[in-house]
């Protein structure tokens, strides 16, 4: 049973990746997930340091909420850019000195899926 669904996963996955416009397909094609050690570092950064404005559980604070529901209709690219370049006129700073584009995209993906 387990192997069967795993096989199915590998058959279905490329289909998603091939369809443009699907946000997960889009980001999956463009991003490389960081190495596991870096993932842990980034998860800590997001939860603790982003969390100081956005809340430890991303329910918002001085910054806007970052829950999957709050981010549902936001394009992944503009969220990635908000992380990298900040948002002028708000308190959101640019994180580009500390993150690669791929890492920012990965963070957006994880936030949108509620995986942090």
């Amino acid at each position, binding site marked *: 049973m387990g192997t069967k669904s795993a096989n199915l996963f590998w058959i279905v996955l490329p289909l998603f990746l091939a369809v443009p416009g699907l946000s997960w397909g889009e980001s999956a094609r463009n991003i490389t997930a960081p190495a596991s050690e870096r993932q842990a570092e980034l998860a800590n950064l997001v939860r*603790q*340091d982003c969390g*100081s404005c956005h809340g*430890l559980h991303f*329910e918002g*604070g*001085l910054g806007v909420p970052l829950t999957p529901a709050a981010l549902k209709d936001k394009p992944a690219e503009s969220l990635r850019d908000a992380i990298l370049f*900040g948002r002028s006129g708000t*308190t959101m700073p640019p994180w580009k*000195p500390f993150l690669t584009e791929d890492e920012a995209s990965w963070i957006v993906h994880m936030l949108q899926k509620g995986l942090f």
Partner: protein
Amino acid sequence: MRYFLLIPLFHMLFALGGCASTVPQRGTGDLGVVIERATGSIQVVETTHRTSLGQITGLGDLSHASLNYSRDARYAYVFGRDGGLTKVDLLEMRIVKRVMQSGNSIGGAISQNGRLIAVANYTPGGIKVFDAETLDLVADIPAIDQSGKSSKVIGLVDVPGNRFVFSLFEAGEIWMADLRTPSKPVVTKFRNIGKEPYDAMITADGRYYLAGLFGEDGLALLDLWDMNAGVKRVLNGYGKGEQKLPVYKMPHLEGWAATGNELLVPAVGRHEVLVIDQNKWNEVGRIPVHGQPVFVVARPDNRQVWVNFAFPDNDTVQVIDVKSREIVKTLKPGKAVMHLEFTPRGEHIWLSARDENRVSIYDAETFIKLGELPAEKPSGIFFTHRAHRTGL
């Protein structure tokens, strides 16, 4: 026969002994609380032998948590990010009462007479005031500006006369709520005080309320001895034309160091501590430091000031000598130093290193490390002498 009579007596003595051990006979003057932000727990600590007395869990989301103490310094009122207000008994080491009072809160204050707890809320914006004994709601003051918009409330402090002062982030206003009659709060509003006040402090004497502005350079000053003069702008246009650095963590102003005639405050978006003359309210100096300051805290004797920094420089703490305005020590206590707290008379300082999962204790004169305590993602450290200080 006599022997049998004695047995129940022994039982009674044991029972009494049991009670005494759950509520230890001790003062609370050397107690404190360490916030464990990620696990929604706190540790009760004591500073005489530098030990942890125990952990209390179930306080909700404690990111950016702060607290006030009851006037007998036995109870802590903990304000959680999730809008939770929790009353904790430090001696019995248990939660006495917990209410969810809003969706999202940022801090609180206790009234001069100790009977009222005010909480500053983001969502919905405003303050709510509770009975300190029962945590029953006493007053609700929504932060709605003239255009009908709700603002996040920041920089809530108590001032003499059972009044509270706070600032509205979006509206750029400072409000004073007079709760001498708790059921009928009288609110005085000061408008156009500056763009985006992000935090505020009250001087230890309860006279000057100062709000830091994020949206522009400068500070908003309210003299409580001369309320008719309104809110003045001080250090206006400070740093004009200079490129600000991105701010990865908002400075906290609660710990602004008032050292007699001078006030040392963190500069927003700069690697500097500002020195302000407290009589003329102008800038008299800038001290270059290692990063963007977050907390600037004076040792109780005001001779030295300790500073921690925003990400990515938050592994460092510096000590400024107030007289010479020079940095006399740079320490690396560990990754992500969140907060610093002096013991009541300032012989020791406790530092929380969030990403090291520990609290480190230093001698505040020799800078020698005295020890450390394990803690789960520690942030704020609050000792009970705050119970008797205006604004804390």
